[in-house]
């Protein structure tokens, strides 16, 4: 028994040590050429030996092997196939004609594992920070024990905090399996300090009991540390989750606000029930699509900035459509909100069908410009897509714009005057018909801006607006009719409630709860959150 173990130990040691001694003596060229041999053991040894070299070319060879681009000729040439399918010498980089028969090294799973290991080792020693980061990231997902010395060596000389953190994490994972209780305690402490919630199951396992009632982890100190670490990780996890939910709530709130803001103007200030409001969002999104296509066709170099151009285009398109609607239909229905509801519903059907005939019934692709794709990692597990961050910012700008128009411009003053007392406003010389047209146009145009943002977040199709109409009316009604800031609070509040309910109740049930809550809420406070004070409030 003991003899057998010694034998294993010896061969294991040989397996580790021999390639190193063997590899040091050979040239890089000869070592690489061995990758082409059909003998697995030689191949594997060569890979491990390559991982110990310091020349950058070793990394190149291994990467080529992993990608299946490495060729070795019988005359000992090591060639790499470029993307143009031409063979180049792996070391000089010059194009060469192979002499003798070419062989393509077979990449089995065992080989791939060895390559990954060697590549990580080479990368860790590299001077390139990006390569070290990549290697550390791979290793943090679970490093093999053979990597330990190399990792400790790198950690000692490493300055970059990301690489340090990842390396400590993977070393701690290795230490956790060690025989030495002190090392395990140290590992648990490191994990606690790093605070990655993904480690919780690993730590929680230490606290589990075997079937016979004894702990899986024999050492009491390790268990105590692990218990403390789990508690602190859970607390951190909760913080992350709340932050994430709040962000997504804010994001959903900003989308709701985009959809509802225009409605807050047309419904809130003018009292027009515009069921075609969702279609204004849709037109805004399609304007973005058209601008994108025009850029693709005529200015492919500036394609990244099409979104900037889409903003005024969508605004103008929807402004004009809105004013046209006001002049031709809505003007005749003032004071008859139920009829307005039906007529604008009809308009929405017509608009949907027009878009369907022009652009097709299927969804169209509106691509994110490169500066909007990607994520910002606020904390581990809290990843904020740039497009959503930009939406929140965009909404803030629109709210400021609408507030400015309504409170700091002449037209805004006239709008407010008409809202308060239409006849009096006329008496002092305000052209109410013209202001009505502009107000409705503004509401529609703001919806168009919303459409630009929505095109960056989801699908663009003819039915885009239908999905938002119920939600946006809810937001306006909850916020209180005629009150822009009420709309703001209602949108963000409903968005947050929705996202906080989602993990508890599921997405659909959460939404149903919110709708039910709103229906109950309106019955308690028919005037919304921010009721207008005064005699007019109850008519």
């Amino acid at each position, binding site marked *: 028994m003991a003899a057998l173990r010694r034998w294993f130990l010896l061969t294991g040691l040989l397996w580790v040590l021999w390639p190193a001694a063997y590899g040091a003596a050979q040239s890089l060229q000869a070592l690489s050429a061995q990758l082409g041999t059909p003998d697995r053991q030689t191949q594997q040894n060569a890979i491990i030996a390559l991982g110990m070299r310091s020349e950058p070319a070793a990394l190149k060879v291994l990467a080529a092997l992993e990608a299946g681009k490495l060729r070795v000729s019988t005359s000992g040439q090591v060639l790499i196939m470029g993307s143009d399918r031409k063979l180049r010498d792996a070391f000089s980089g010059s194009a060469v004609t192979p002499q003798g028969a070419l062989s393509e090294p077979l990449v089995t799973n065992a080989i791939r594992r060895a390559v990954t290991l060697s590549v990580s080792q080479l990368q860790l020693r590299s001077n390139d920070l990006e390569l070290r980061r990549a290697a550390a990231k791979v290793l943090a997902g679970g490093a093999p024990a053979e990597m330990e010395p190399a990792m400790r060596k790198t950690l000692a000389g490493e300055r970059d905090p990301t690489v340090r953190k990842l390396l400590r994490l993977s070393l701690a994972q290795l230490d956790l399996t060690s025989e030495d209780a002190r090392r395990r305690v140290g590992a648990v402490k490191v994990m606690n300090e790093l605070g990655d919630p993904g480690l919780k199951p690993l730590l929680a396992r230490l606290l589990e009991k075997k079937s016979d009632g004894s702990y899986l982890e024999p050492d009491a100190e390790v268990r105590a540390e692990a218990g403390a670490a789990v508690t602190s990780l859970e607390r951190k996890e909760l913080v992350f989750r709340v932050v994430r939910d709040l962000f997504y709530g804010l994001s959903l709130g900003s989308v709701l606000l985009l959809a509802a803001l225009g409605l807050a103007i047309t419904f809130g*200030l*003018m*009292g027009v*029930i515009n*069921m075609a409001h969702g279609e204004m969002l849709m037109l805004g999104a399609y304007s973005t699509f058209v601008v994108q296509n025009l850029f693709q066709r005529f200015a492919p170099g500036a394609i990244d900035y099409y979104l900037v151009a889409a903003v005024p285009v969508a605004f103008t398109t929807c402004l004009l459509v809105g004013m046209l609607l006001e002049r031709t*239909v809505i003007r005749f*229905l*003032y*004071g*008859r*909100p*139920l*009829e*307005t*509801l*039906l*007529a604008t*519903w*009809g*308009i929405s*059907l*017509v608009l*949907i*069908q027009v878009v369907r*005939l022009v652009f097709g019934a299927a969804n169209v692709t509106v691509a994110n410009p490169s500066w909007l794709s990607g994520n910002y990692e606020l904390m581990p597990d809290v990843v904020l897509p740039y497009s959503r961050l930009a939406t929140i910012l965009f909404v803030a700008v629109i709210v400021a714009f609408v507030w400015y128009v309504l409170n700091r411009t002449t037209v805004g003053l006239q709008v*407010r005057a008409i*809202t*308060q*007392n*239409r*006849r*009096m406003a006329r008496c002092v010389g305000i052209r109410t018909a013209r202001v009505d047209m502009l107000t409705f146009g503004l509401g529609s145009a703001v919806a168009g801006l919303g459409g630009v943002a929505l095109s960056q977040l989801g699908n663009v199709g003819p039915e885009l607006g*239908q999905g938002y*109409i*119920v939600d946006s*009316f*809810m937001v306006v*009604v909850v916020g209180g009719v*005629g*009150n*822009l*800031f009420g709309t703001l609070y209602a949108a963000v509040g409903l968005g947050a409630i929705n996202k906080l309910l989602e993990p508890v109740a599921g997405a*659909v*049930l959460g939404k*149903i709860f919110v*709708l039910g809550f*709103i*229906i*109950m809420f*309106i*019955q*308690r406070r*028919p005037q919304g959150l921010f009721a*207008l*004070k*005064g*005699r*007019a*409030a109850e*008519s």
Partner: protein
Amino acid sequence: MARGVLRQLHTPKQWAALSAVALVLLVWVPIQNLAVPEGAPAHLPNYLIPLFGKFLCFVLLAIAMDLIWGYTGILSLGQTVFFALGGYAMGMYLMRSIGTEGVYRSELPDFMVFLDWKELPWFWRPFDSFGFAAVAALALPGLFAFVFGYLAFRSRIRGVYLSIITQALTYAMMLLMFRNNTGFGGNNGLTDFKRVLGYPLSEQPTKVALYALSGGAVLLGYLLCRYVVTSKLGRVLLAIRDQEGRVTFAGYNPVTYKLFVWTLAAVLSGLAGALYVPQVGIINPSELQPANAIEIAIWCAVGGRGTLFGAAIGAVTINGLKSFLTNAYPDAWLFVLGGLFVVVTLFFPAGIVGILRSLRRPNSKDSGAGDGTSLPAPAVEPAIAEVAHAAASEPEPAARQAS
């Protein structure tokens, strides 16, 4: 007494016309289909019977809508909820009556087998009985409407606010029914029915019987609504529609009256749903799309609001048009429907009935003077009157802060 009631409902001439319609619906159509041999020119094709039956269910739905919208001024966008409740109640019975003839040969409905449910949920059990399902198809919508209406009317929610929250209700209901775990077949709904009360649904006599039942339900529903609107109660309803505030000052409590018609309309809608499902063979959440609820309103508006039979005319006209156009010119249908919404509200607020009346009495501006149920000059809907695009005679609300 009985004679008095008959007089109250209709003049003898109108009774004659109504009887003629009833004869055509209940006697002539079934005979043309069943008694006339197939191939004969007078034979009514089989496929038309369920289609007509479907239309009749829509007519009942439209009449109920007219009762609450045309007469009481409540534009409900939640009628499809009551319709679907009735439909699902009946669908559950039909589902249970399949027995073990489903695809999976199981005691349980197919979709439950598919979801790997082991036993029937408790709320499905009583629906083994037709009697229970029939009562539930009327009582569930009624009860639901009563509770919802009580809460809404008591809080004085009206006008567009009521429209908006009923639409939210429909939307929430649709989302709920789309969930598989709610227990009503999720996305696919309830379908593959085999028989009702032992009669196979695939056979023509069953179809004709269902059609005739729908016809009978429409006639009874119409007479019931007619009775309501021609009674004193009906006058109060009209008053509520036109000036709810004054009704309150005159000593009436509008909540009671609204709640009554609201519940009645829900029960009728539930009945329509219960008759609709066995004839169409499926009930699924798409019935609850907000668009469908608004379409009911346009049936009433096109036919002519506040006349009951106008709603029936509108429902038949639009659904006939829809059946024809969605086949012949599918791209045009939404333009026509959308156009109807706009044109009718802008130019023909009294609908088809209004046009017919003004043709008959070209000099009379008041198109429906005879029975006191005419549409008023566009009434100012109270909820929004504060925003005051109102007629000049409307008192202006006091100045207030905006935003």
